[in-house]
């Protein structure tokens, strides 16, 4: 550990000492816990693929990976950047459209075309980002909402190879795992792809959170004037934020379109946006673990509430309202606080 720090310190000293490498959270990584988590994540689908309920749980986990990537990158804009962009689902749809249309119309393998998804989404984000940067708060909401509505209109009434007569993209080539390994193991393969994408996105976003760039984003959010006076270029950093966030969102869009084999224009409707927003805010926005927790919760809760049948939505809405009232900063800060207090209590008892 000591060696590690000296090596990296010398690397940084040669440029300029902007960040104490050893102070980063990566110096405190609990490798055992991480290892166990990875082994469980890798082994779990092999167990679950054996029975029907397990395969459904796998499907839920694949959805969790997809929406987890989207909410984490949205949290980067909303929570860390403080920019009220409502175009995240539109960027997601653009990713799906780009990869889906290219693989369907040109016959390109989905493994190649999926890389077009993040690129297309990033370009779109730069196009929206440029005018949005002039605006503030609620006006960014309007501009991004207008963009999403324009896209929705295009995706329902546009040319047939995009809108499919109002049904959206259908019969998009899938990644083809089912044909190779059957339904159960095929889904396990999809799970592994989703897990890989989720882990890459999560790692990159984690590093951004604990980097000078992430600090600049937060500085711009908390006091733009002060941040600018300390040399943070708002234009460059906000554009970077838009691009970073769009990249992973687009990738998730590309993944889901090749998992489902279709993309309905209905995903551009407002309820999905609100659902994703609820995930970010419930978990605790601006925190790293918040969106992950919120996504897991809102992916599982609707299935749990299936038990109460017709009262499912009612229970869902009540839960949402109650969490908002009793944990207004999100669940993650509340849980972290509780764990910290428990640990303190535990330590006190040990000392006595």
């Amino acid at each position, binding site marked *: 550990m000591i060696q590690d720090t000296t090596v990296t310190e010398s690397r940084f000293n040669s440029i300029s000492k902007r960040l104490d490498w050893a102070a980063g959270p990566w110096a405190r990584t609990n490798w055992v816990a991480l290892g166990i988590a990875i082994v469980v994540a890798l082994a779990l689908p092999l167990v679950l693929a054996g029975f029907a309920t397990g395969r459904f749980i796998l499907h839920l986990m694949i959805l969790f990976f997809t929406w987890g990537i989207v909410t984490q990158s949205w949290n980067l804009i909303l929570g860390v950047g403080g920019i009220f962009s409502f175009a995240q689902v539109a960027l997601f749809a653009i990713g799906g459209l780009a990869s889906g249309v290219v693989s369907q119309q040109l016959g390109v393998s989905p493994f190649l075309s999926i890389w077009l998804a993040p690129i297309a989404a990033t370009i779109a984000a730069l196009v929206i980002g440029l005018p949005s940067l*002039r605006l503030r708060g*609620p006006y960014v909401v309007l501009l991004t909402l207008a963009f999403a509505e324009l896209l929705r209109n295009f995706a329902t009434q546009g040319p047939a190879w995009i809108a499919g007569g109002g049904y959206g993209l259908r019969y998009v080539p899938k990644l083809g795992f089912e044909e190779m390994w059957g339904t159960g193991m095929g889904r396990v393969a999809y799970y592994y792809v989703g897990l890989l994408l989720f882990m890459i996105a999560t790692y990159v976003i984690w590093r951004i959170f604990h980097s000078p760039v992430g600090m600049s984003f937060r500085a711009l959010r908390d006091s733009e004037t002060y941040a600018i006076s300390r040399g943070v270029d708002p234009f460059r950093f906000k554009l970077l934020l838009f691009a970073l966030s769009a990249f992973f969102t687009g990738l998730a869009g590309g993944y889901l379109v090749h998992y489902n084999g279709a993309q309905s224009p209905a995903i551009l409707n407002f309820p999905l946006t609100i659902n994703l*927003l609820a995930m970010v*805010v419930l978990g605790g926005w601006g925190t790293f673990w918040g969106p992950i927790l919120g996504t897991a919760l809102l992916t599982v809760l609707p299935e749990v509430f299936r038990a109460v049948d017709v009262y499912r939505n009612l229970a869902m809405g009540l839960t949402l309202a109650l969490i908002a009232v009793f944990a207004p900063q999100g669940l993650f800060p509340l849980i972290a606080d509780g764990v910290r207090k428990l640990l303190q209590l535990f330590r006190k008892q040990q000392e006595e």
Partner: protein
Amino acid sequence: MEKLFQAIYGGILYGSIYGLMAIGLTLVWGALRMLNLAHGSLYVVGGYVAWTALNEWALPALPSFALGVIAAALVGLLIQVLLINRLLGRPSFFNAAMIATVGAAIVIESAMLLIYGPRVKQMAPVIPGHFKTLGVVIQYQGLVIIVAAAISLVLLSLFLRKSRYGLAIQAVSQQMDAARLMGIPTVLTFTIVMAISAGLAGLAGVLLSSVFYLAPTAGFNPMVKALVVTIFGGLGSVKGTIWAAYVIGLLEAFLQVYFGAGWALPGLFLFMMIMLIIRPTGLFGMGEVQRL
């Protein structure tokens, strides 16, 4: 020439509808700095209660409409007292209040679904029939909507400028801390604002349920449109919102009449994007006012 009159009539009709919906959103934003995403479900409450009173209890039109408005206002009051008032002054008020209203909206909409079932309902118009002038078919119901919207908007602006409570609302919107120091009960003011806003949403629901269909999620599209109008007019500005409602209504109607219905929405949003790039704080925006 007929097309021109058609567009003007349609524009004023749309503008009235948007105005009724948007004014409530803007009042709540002005006083509480909160995005009320349950506004659409309050619209639905108004519509359903009026429908029940009219069709099941066989009440005359006017009392049943009043019942719809009162019911929506009561539900808005309940949301305010049970959820929002508990969040006031917390550091993450904006987000938490928004999610709380989303939860309330889901609860209301699923309750309506449980009570009334998924089948869509339609209310009979107040005055059925239509007449034709200058080549435009004008339905009496359309005229009722236009007149009712105009009357309630005028009454609202009188209330805001002349009455004690209206002045309190304005004071709280402009400077909450100063208003509190002057002895204005802010929580009571917030509650009044919410009830008025909900009542107006209910009124929109009552009037529109005879034009559009009534379903548990029917309030959603009017709410999104109202959101656009509110932000376009400059959030929190009552005058700006009323202007924006009619400007957007007329624009939509003109696009529909001259370019076809498919162009109305994209044209509208394209126009809005351009306007925002030219005027970044909306039509009558308050500029860089920040509440610290």
